């Protein structure tokens, strides 16, 4: 609870910072003024948005609006910012969720193998792969995958969440949750489920690549640390099969620091989503924010940046709490 309260000043700081940025950018009334307006109407707009007040008063009006759920109107989405977020969030969440799963499964497996076969060619190969994972430009990886699997092999669709024509022909998807994989199943249409799945593969793999690298490296180093501890030696010396020693004794405990990194890499995933969604034309928060930022859609920029900060900070908090839960040594202190 104390930790939760500590977040408030940080988020307030973020809001002050982002607010200052948007005010530096120019007259906020410009967004609402069109060529056909009379001077009176313009004055009325300035009055309505409190633009004649000093900046710090404007900030408090703005903050009041934010807390009351009025996040402004996004010109790029043609929706109020809160509705735009609700509209785009499921697509981003589905993509991020699947790629986190890919990253966790692959990263933990590679990290374990790398630690168990330390200093063998397998280990070196994994190390090079992990380093190239953080060095690859996300947008380039996405484009290369598109070239190979769409343009050359024709195995996977190029972009978007689903084939629109197919969806219409199949009678559409009822939106229960906003997650295509779940909705198509609930609609009871396996064809659409398959369609949603093949559309997800490339973006999810692209997005997960950097995270795989980070998880692999931390998993390797924490495995190496754990494998020298007494309880692992004990397990070995009592004649337990090596496979079980690694799976039950070493890996479980090595997972604890890895959890932290999984949480931390969430911020990276949000950033990655901006690029990945732009390449794959994925109708989520990332693509929206990229086009909003390019089109000076200030309400959207403010909203998205704040949302990113809130998500990031909350995820880190959850990770800290989970850490205490997973590690009895921390819990008991």
């Amino acid at each position, binding site marked *: 609870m104390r930790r939760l309260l500590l977040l408030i000043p940080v988020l307030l700081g973020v809001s002050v910072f982002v607010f200052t940025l948007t005010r530096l950018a120019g007259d906020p009334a410009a967004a609402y003024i069109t060529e056909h307006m009379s001077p009176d109407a313009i004055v009325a707009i300035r009055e309505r948005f409190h633009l004649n007040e000093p900046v710090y008063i404007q900030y408090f009006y703005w903050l009041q609006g934010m807390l009351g759920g009025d996040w402004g109107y996004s010109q790029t989405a043609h929706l109020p910012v809160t509705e735009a977020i609700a509209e785009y969030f499921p697509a981003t969440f589905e993509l991020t969720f699947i790629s986190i799963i890919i990253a966790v499964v692959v990263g933990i497996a590679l990290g374990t193998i790398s630690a168990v076969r330390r200093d063998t060619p397998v280990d070196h190969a994994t190390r090079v792969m992990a380093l190239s994972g953080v*060095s690859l430009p996300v947008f380039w990886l996405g484009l290369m995958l598109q070239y190979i699997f769409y343009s050359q092999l024709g195995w996977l669709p190029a972009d978007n969440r689903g084939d629109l024509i197919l969806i219409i022909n199949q009678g559409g998807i009822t939106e229960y949750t906003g997650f295509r994989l779940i909705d198509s199943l609930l609609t009871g249409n396996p064809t659409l489920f398959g369609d949603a799945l093949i559309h997800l593969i490339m973006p999810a793999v692209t997005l997960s690549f950097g995270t795989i690298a980070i998880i692999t490296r931390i998993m390797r180093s924490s495995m190496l640390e754990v494998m020298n501890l007494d309880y692992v030696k004990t397990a070995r010396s009592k004649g337990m099969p090596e496979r079980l020693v690694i799976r039950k004794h070493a890996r479980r405990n090595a997972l604890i620091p890895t959890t932290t990194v999984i949480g931390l890499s969430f911020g990276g995933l949000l950033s990655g989503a901006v690029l990945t969604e732009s390449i794959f034309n994925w109708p989520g928060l990332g693509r929206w924010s990229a086009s909003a930022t390019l089109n000076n859609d200030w309400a959207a920029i403010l909203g998205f940046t704040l949302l990113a900060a809130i998500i990031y900070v909350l995820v880190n908090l959850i990770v800290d709490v989970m850490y205490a839960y997973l590690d009895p040594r921390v819990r008991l202190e």
Partner: protein
Amino acid sequence: MATEPSTIKKTGFLGDSINLVKKSLRPRLREFRFSMYLMRKSALAFVGLIIVLIMVFIAIFAPLLAPPAPNADPMQIPRDYQLPKPPGVENHLFGTGQLGADIYYGIVWGARTSMEISLFVVATATIIGLVLGAVSGFYGGAVDEALMRITDVFLSIPSLILAMAVAAVLTRSLENIMLALTIVWWPPYARLIRGQVLSVRESTYVEAARAMGAKKSRILFRHIVPNSLAPVVVNMTMDFGVVVLVAAGLSYIGFGAPAGTAEWGKMVSDGQEWFLSTTTYDGQQYSPWWVVTFPGLMIFLFVMGFNLLGDGLRDILDPRLRR
């Protein structure tokens, strides 16, 4: 740099005899040689060093490797306004891209652009972070508290998103991308250096300097800061690559350089229009894979080189792992 005996350095600093200076440099030289020896032993770090040196070479000798047309802006890639041509024809080593821009030229001059972005962002962020972090860690109190809360704010927004928000306010140019990235990049440095200063502050040699009556600023900048630098150097090395990666991402989305600039991220986004379609040259049909592949590969190599080097340096500069 890591385990520098500060007493010797002190004599060198005070004494005006050249001999003393030489003497004080000798252990440093020995340590440097030893570092180079360790570097050669670690294969991956060495590969990183080679890649980095090649990139530096390309950046410096760009005017010789790809001479620009007289009176032309060298940062603009020369175009022939025809369809993309495959690699190897008509003196286009890597082919041509959007509006017939020569990929080889863009790649060579792009190395210079990347180097400039990295140098500016990393150097500025380090200097700001170094001063603020050192002062904050050394003096503590209200200044420290205020500064750390400010860095909290910056660190709570993912870096690409923060850079996007800052870049949105500024006009679209490469210089403004550098500015946006600098604003994003200094807080981690301030944090890192503060942490280092806090631990070095308690060492016995700092206590000794204090006991001898050295001024606070002297203790901070001659004793504490130099001994806090090893992890900063590792971080800087890796950031040289990461900065280029994020800058290329921003450039790809559409901030930064105008179309046709010799910047790798921009070249990828300029090329992607052609990437999934086809072009004809000499009556033959091609799918122009080269327009995106080469500039992207350069970004990858650049970032990878600095990452390998930084990863190796971490082990080499750490006094505990060193011997």
